[in-house]
């Protein structure tokens, strides 16, 4: 009997919460849940921005890699200003401007960047010196750049230039500014013409 009464007293003493306990627990719970919700909301809100940023950087990487490859295989390159680049180079295409893959052939590639920070790539026949005649469709290869000052030539013998490519993205919404930069020396000797 003594045992049962003791157990009963214990159970009653620990079996519920007092009002202050409940209030404090509720407050703590609200704070905790509020923090978590804030965290999540920020993450969810930021995710598209992060995704876009990653996509931009990836796009810039792909463009820089592509231009580097085209410059490496290039024989002639020129740039009237830092927003434009013309390369006579090898492209794995059935014909210049045609997306169908094929053995490497020489084509002339034009890159042009506008003041809005977007760059296009136009693939033309090797004898074309100004698009669009004899060229395929212009394709936008990168956007959202800080400016159009992308291409720079280090002086070398004409046609054997070292070309650097600089893709700068502005700081936005608390994100740091990002610059993807690469440079390539042309491996092929210059051919006659531009």
């Amino acid at each position, binding site marked *: 009997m003594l045992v049962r009464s003791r*157990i009963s007293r214990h159970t009653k003493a620990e079996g519920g919460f007092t009002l202050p306990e409940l209030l404090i*627990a509720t407050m703590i719970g609200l704070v*905790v849940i509020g923090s978590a919700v804030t965290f999540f909301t920020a993450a969810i809100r930021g995710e598209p921005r992060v995704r876009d940023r*990653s996509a931009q950087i990836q796009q810039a990487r792909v463009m820089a890699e592509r231009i580097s490859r085209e410059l*490496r295989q290039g024989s002639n390159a020129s740039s009237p200003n830092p927003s434009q680049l013309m390369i006579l180079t090898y492209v794995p295409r059935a014909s210049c401007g045609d997306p169908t893959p094929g053995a490497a052939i020489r084509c002339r590639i034009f890159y042009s960047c506008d003041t809005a920070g977007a760059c296009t790539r136009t693939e033309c026949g090797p004898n074309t010196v100004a698009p669009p005649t004899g060229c395929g469709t212009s394709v936008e290869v990168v956007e959202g750049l800080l400016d159009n000052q992308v291409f720079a030539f280090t002086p070398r013998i004409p046609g054997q230039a070292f070309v650097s490519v600089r893709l700068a993205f502005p700081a936005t919404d608390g994100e740091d500014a990002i610059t993807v930069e690469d440079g390539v020396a042309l491996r092929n*000797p210059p051919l006659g013409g531009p």
Partner: protein
Amino acid sequence: MRLPTPTVRNQPKTAPGPESGFAVPTVLFMVIAAFAVGSVAVVASLRAQEGTSRDLHTKDALAVAEAGAHQALVRYNAAGAKEACVPPQTLSGAWCTPATGSLAGGGDFAYWVQPTAGLIEVVSQGSRDGVTRRILVRAHSAAGQQPFIDWGVIGLNSVRLDSNADVTADTATNGDINLLSNSQLCGNVQVGPGHDVLPPGTGSHSCGIELQGTTTLPAVNQGDVRTNNDNGNFFASTPIGGQRSRVCWNGVNGDGQASSNCGSRELVITHNSDITLPSGNYSFCRLQLLQNSAVYIASGATVRIYFDSPEACGYGSGVKQLEIDSNAQITANGDSTAVDVALLFVGSETRSTVIDLASNTAVEALCDQDFVVYAPRSDLVLKSNSSYCGALAAKTVLINSNSHITVSSQAQAFILPNSPPHYVVDDFVECAGPATSPPDVDC
């Protein structure tokens, strides 16, 4: 029977009940939330890291592949570009068996070579840190070098234009290009790194672009011309015009009499006299044309005149190995298909030698006649209304007093004689995927 008295140790079975409310789920929830947020950052960071690593490895693999291709070209050049596999590689089908190698800094390469008549193809595959890249290099066999292919006027140390001098040519130097006193230069120019076209505003660089770079000129290799040459043509096969006594070669004048006007391997012509040279390789110590004299090149002839070193000729420093003055001239035969006359100066590192063209002299007739002056260790001076058509290279170039230079395309194609056979790269192509058979598939 007495039941055991419950103690505190026996009570926990009842305690968890009221403590198992929302605390555990909340903590779990928070942990998961923190983990998720952290994971996003980690994944983004890892992706960026992977991209950077991949780019670096790609560049490394390409560099390794290029190292393999360079090694192949070096080996085949060292073997004399003989259009055959270099041992220990042997021909297997159309390609030589592969050679392999590795770089001290890491990376392995393998290359395959296909040597054919006048052409070599090298496929090189480089691997570094699990990334593989493959390239194809095509090169043609070159028996000689073309020093004027990019630049028509070359002054290794300096180029200086003064007093209304006029140059229409792509011009290069490792130093500065000085444009003084109304001089004009039209054409692309290349100065040495850190150098410039100077001074601005005095002369003018009227057309073309300005670059910086390094200019090199191979030395003249005269081979055995000093002893095995066509000097024996004097005077039996070299018609003389004007006064024969005014033409002096090797201490003897045109009349066959000993003369102090010229020494060993020296040709001196004066007083309206001239001589006509047939084709051949000549070895001179000095050529002096004065007072309306001339050297004519026979019709259809190709003449190469090697000017020996001052040491071999017994000259001190500062000797004029070529002097054309007072309306004298060298006149080619009008055959515009190739360089008619090449004046090649061996020069010296320790004794200066000078080429002096002055006073209405002309090394031209029509500008499609092609002359080459190649003197990488001599100083060249054009002055007093002298004119020149062709291409020229010297240690220093001074163009002065109304002199003018134009460059012809034939002179640009001039091949320096006696340079060793070697391969010159024509094409560099990146290939898709690793090598299969044959190795140049997808290149």
